[in-house]
């Protein structure tokens, strides 16, 4: 089916695919920013126990965690134009990239809402009461007490989500978005050197994942400075397992995503 293996092609393909890297990264970044907004909106009704909205957000999260991202891509690709037609917007000339971004944003929103919720819940209630008893306002309690601790807890999970999103972008080509995988398809069929294309592409993904992992590790260590200081002073074992318990919490993991 394909021609004989030639390692030279791997090296010549890498720069060609890298010229599409910015589109892949654009999908990842925009889906995260939009996902953060959606995630916050979805997490709030559940944290504050708002009757009807709470149910809606539960169904939303369950649906996007319970279906494959590939199906979601096609649902948005065929469903969004129909929805937009209802409000008299014609999307037939839109770039498919926007449909990919919309899907990944909706998908990330579901996971991010869970991350936000568990991050906030990981903070000890007593601390919040203590903060209020020394006269802090709700806003001050959130920015000074809850946020810093919640952030530290969720960084590893968030890191998994970002890397999962990066890998998921490889599916955007199925609806015709031209990112790195889409480019690899055209390169592969033009030269008939498929194995080399996919080796080159895998190497690019691997390097970006490793870089992201390192960056998040540094961020985590910075945010956890206080934990480490405490850990050295008293009961190191227990301290560590406290953090680890939250990080391994099953509700947080990416579930059906990121593979």
């Amino acid at each position, binding site marked *: 089916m394909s021609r004989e293996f030639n390692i030279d092609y791997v090296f010549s393909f890498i720069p060609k695919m890298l010229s599409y890297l910015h589109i892949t990264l654009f999908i990842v970044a925009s889906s995260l920013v939009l996902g953060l907004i959606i995630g916050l909106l979805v997490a709030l009704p559940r944290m504050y126990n708002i009757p009807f909205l709470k149910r809606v957000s539960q169904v939303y999260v369950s649906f996007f965690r319970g279906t*494959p991202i590939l199906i979601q891509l096609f649902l948005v690709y065929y469903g969004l134009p129909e929805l937009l037609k209802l409000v008299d917007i014609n999307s037939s000339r839109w770039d498919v990239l926007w449909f990919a971004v919309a899907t990944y944003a909706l998908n990330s929103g579901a996971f991010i809402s869970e991350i936000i919720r568990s991050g906030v819940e990981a903070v000890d209630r007593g601390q919040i009461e203590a903060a209020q008893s020394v006269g802090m306002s709700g806003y001050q309690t959130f920015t000074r007490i809850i946020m810093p601790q919640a952030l530290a807890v969720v960084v590893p999970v968030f890191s998994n989500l970002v890397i999962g999103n990066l890998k998921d972008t490889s599916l955007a080509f199925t609806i015709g978005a031209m990112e790195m995988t889409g480019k690899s398809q055209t390169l592969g069929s033009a030269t008939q050197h498929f194995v080399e294309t996919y080796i080159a592409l895998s190497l690019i993904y691997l390097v970006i994942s490793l870089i992201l992992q390192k960056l998040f590790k540094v961020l985590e260590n910075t945010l956890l400075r206080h934990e480490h200081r405490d850990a050295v002073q008293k009961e190191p074992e227990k301290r560590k397992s406290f953090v680890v318990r939250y990080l391994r919490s099953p509700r947080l993991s990416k579930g059906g995503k990121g593979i």
Partner: protein
Amino acid sequence: MSLDFGFIYTAFLGLFSALPNTLIITVVSVLAGLVIGIITALARIYKVPVLSQISHGYVTFIRGTPMLMHLLLIYFSLPLLIDAGAKHFGWPLQSKDVPYMVFALISFSITSGAYMSEVVRSGIQSVNKGQIEAAYAVGMTTWQVLRRIVFPQAFVVSLPNLTNSVIGMLHGSTLAFTVSVTEIQAQAEILASTNWKYLEVYIAAALLFWGLTVLIERISGLVEKKINVFNGGRAS
């Protein structure tokens, strides 16, 4: 919006014919992945000289690249290897005799193996070291320690992660359509293009996957309750 609700139901029934393939892919890749995962995890925990480095490289590579890449790499490179082998060693096997399903199963097992390896590793490492020492102290062999002390407890701890991996492989099985295996996604494409009702078919496919996922979560929840008896019945 013109949504044909009747066709969603028809499509839902039509997708059932592809359900066995999806389930085969999920079950085989999870089981094979577990075997690979246990081997690589033990190699890394016991720091077996060469094996542990290989395992580490394998896990890093697989977790750092999309599942689609593993599938396409296997799909395009294995036939080359098989044909080369047939030419040089006179194997009776030709790549065109191998069903596409086999390539999908091999690739998904390799993918799942790396994720399972992390599940198994975190599970085993959660078992208290003192218990293992105690087991050795009463004269158990390493195999006995693993089988009687470590594995049962590790299983309880890693069940939620295991469930996530199973759901991950269920959702990942949709990728098999790229190598022409007729699972739910591929069947959806066929149904959609023959009836020209794309949205309805994908709604049906989404509902089917959603149902399967919720079912897996429920079962796992029940099992979790059962095996946590020694913990006083509370979820760990």
